[in-house]
């Protein structure tokens, strides 16, 4: 049944393509296909599912259509491995023939999808949740857009907040891949400049279960730990650190204190209260747009239906990127002709209204936007959420540095032992 429909759809697309080649215009009212890729398997499965909720919310807010053309969403899944992500994207782009592709979720996937997008110039790629610096900083692709700020931008302001709290020496525990490199670079470039020291960095494998060797390595003379772990890894580390009697205050990476981690069931999570962190979202931010967004999310995806009490970082960034895709379509009135040239022009020039403020793109099609420094608090019902300590606007990808001074994050860069 479904297969028949697929063949029928393919035939229709073929016919439409023929019509386009022979010079006649696209029929108004034909659906626009948008591919949606997130991790529904693997370490970020919970985040990926919430990302899909965020993207669906953006489509729902437009009533499922733009400029009289229906929006058809085709979903695909990966497991945070770049080869799986490229396979899924290839299916969406080459088999399902989507016009616009939104995704993927994690850093390594983002770099692989960006490389793949260069071979598919007919399709516009918009990032989902991935936040590695290299995606738009090194060999950017002309048809890859990212409307969310990335890992390093998300950490701006945390270095200063840590110094203000009196943390002069910090140990870093982070997963060993592109996204945490960016996060650590964003933190350290500010923290080191202000005179902070990072004597030890522990890079742990993604999906690690046993952190005892890392916990044993924590020196006595550090004032705090910066933990940049995501999803199940963060929960595992926190539990084991608590069990081993650790009591150092904590600084959190952007996805360490996202809703999907904060609402993990378990008693130990209370130790997270008081953790400062930075990221593109703050649950208790009191902007009117943010409140409207949260209310809409809570109404559409109540906790009883599997939603989180407040939208996670992934729901937010997928929402922003999908909203950008749809706003761009509205700006050109659904016109994707001419190799989507007009559409891409509109995307590049767009000032996107997001729940946390306005976002513009730089020359590499990378977002310039807002970051919040937050602190974890517990509300009356026992839910953990993040409270805004400081809001930093207009952060660009070079973090305000000059191009010559800027060094991309890696295991050893930057360093201030």
């Amino acid at each position, binding site marked *: 049944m*479904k297969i028949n429909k*697929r063949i029928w759809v393919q035939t229709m697309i073929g016919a439409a393509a023929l019509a386009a080649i022979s010079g006649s215009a696209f029929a108004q009212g034909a659906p626009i296909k948008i591919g949606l890729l997130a991790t*529904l*398997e693997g370490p970020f499965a919970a985040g990926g*599912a919430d990302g899909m909720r965020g993207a669906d919310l953006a489509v729902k807010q437009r009533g499922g259509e733009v400029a009289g053309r229906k929006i058809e969403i085709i*979903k*695909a*899944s990966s*497991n*945070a*491995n*770049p*080869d*799986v992500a*490229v*396979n899924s994207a*290839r*299916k969406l782009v*080459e*088999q399902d023939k989507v016009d616009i592709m939104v995704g993927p979720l994690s850093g*390594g996937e983002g*770099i*692989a999808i960006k*490389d793949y997008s260069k071979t598919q110039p007919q399709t516009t790629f918009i990032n989902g949740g991935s936040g590695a610096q290299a995606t738009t900083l090194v060999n950017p692709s002309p048809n890859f857009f990212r409307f969310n700020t990335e890992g390093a931008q998300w950490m701006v302001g945390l270095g200063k907040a840590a110094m203000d709290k009196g943390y002069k020496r910090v140990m870093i525990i982070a*997963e*060993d*891949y*592109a996204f945490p490199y960016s996060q650590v670079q964003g933190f350290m470039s500010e923290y080191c400049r202000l005179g902070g020291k990072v004597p030890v960095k522990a890079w742990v*494998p*993604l999906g690690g279960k046993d952190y005892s060797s890392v916990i044993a390595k924590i020196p006595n003379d550090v004032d705090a730990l910066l933990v940049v772990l995501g999803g199940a890894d963060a929960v595992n580390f926190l539990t084991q650190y608590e069990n081993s009697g650790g009591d150092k205050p904590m600084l959190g990476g952007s996805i360490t204190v996202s809703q999907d981690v904060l609402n993990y069931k378990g008693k130990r999570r209370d130790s997270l209260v008081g953790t400062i962190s930075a990221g593109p979202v703050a649950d208790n931010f009191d902007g009117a747009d943010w409140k409207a967004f949260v209310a809409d999310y809570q109404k559409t995806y109540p906790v009883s239906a599997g939603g989180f009490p407040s939208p996670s970082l992934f729901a937010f960034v997928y929402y922003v990127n999908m909203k950008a895709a749809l706003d761009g379509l509205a700006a050109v009135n659904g016109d994707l002709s001419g190799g989507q040239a007009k559409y891409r022009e509109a995307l590049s020039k767009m000032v996107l209204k997001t729940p946390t403020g306005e976002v513009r793109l730089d020359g590499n099609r990378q977002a310039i936007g807002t970051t919040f420094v937050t602190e974890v608090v517990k509300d009356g019902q026992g839910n953990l959420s993040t409270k805004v300590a400081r809001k930093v606007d207009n952060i660009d990808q070079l973090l305000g540095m000059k191009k010559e001074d800027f060094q991309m994050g890696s*295991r050893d860069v930057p360093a201030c032992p």
Partner: protein
Amino acid sequence: MSAAKWRRAMNSGLQSAPLRGVPGAVAAAANAAPAVDPYADSDAPRWLKFLWRTLAPRHVFVLAFVLLLPFVASPFITYQVAAQSLIFGLIALSLSFLAGYGGMVSLAQFTVAGMAGYAVAVLGASGTATSLGWPWGVVVPLAVVVAVIGSTLIGWLSVRTDGIYTIMITLAIGVAFYYLVLQNYTIFNGFQGFQKVYPPVVFGVNWRDPLPFYFLCLACAMAGYFSIQWLVRTPFGIALQGTRDNARRMNALGYNVTAHRVAAYAVSGVLAGVGGVLLVWYNGLITPGSVGTGWLINLLVIAVLGGMKHPIGAFLGAIVFVLLQTFAIDLIDRERFNLVIGGVFLAIVLFSPDGLLGLWAKLRMRFGPSQVVTSPSTSTTRRQA
């Protein structure tokens, strides 16, 4: 299959006869009954007579299908479905050769393929600075050699064990290799692995394009398939099957069982190595995730799904696996598509312990024209072919 079951099967022509129906099977008539060769007197060259004897309509059919497919199907089907199936089929063939003809179930075959893939990425050109950037003419043979050495060492370690212990030790090796590439940064670049590992441009053809890449995979897969077909009928292949059925008796007859088994691992290393080179080119990248435990298990699933009694089973299993991986998410528009994949696998294995090959044989037995049961010796040879 236990030795006792095997002997029973040998003595009953009925059980094995339907296996002649396996598509693509080159019947081993030449080996079995030279006396009844109807073309013995004609003047045609030997190879033509051989072809005439062994080719059945289904062979021509399958050959025409695989040759014409890329010209009919979309580049996506050609590349992602067909080429990927051929690559997984080739790697699974290395496992079903070991398991089906040698009686050794090794979970490390995907690791062997990964060794070749990592060799291509480390020695050849990639987007990572630590790659050596040697020319492909050196890198590809070296990668296959690395795979053969790796496979031989794995075999040398594991052939003294049996059954479940072989599985355990090869699984341990596979997981160890995963953690090695995950945590080593000086050579293997850790979690991020190697990006932009592309096939070279040779003779003005960009082998990364779907059509050339498909035919490259097809050539490798057919070469692997026919060499296994040939190998299992050589004295070495027959002796290997002997060690599978009764190692002690083979030993008493003067065969060196360990040497035969290690040699089988080396042969499977060639297949897995070639498959690994193609796989890294197909993905354009290799990361620890590409050689993770999930893939070790998936390869076993492919081999079991297809059936291990004939080399074609590996490719059938791979086709079903890739189709499900690619399209299951369309059949059930939710976050539960893995349930469909698991359900189909379960159903196939439940209803047919020999995988798709067994299913095919059952169907032929029930609906096909009644088979003439020939002498046990003939059917035994067929079984081996």
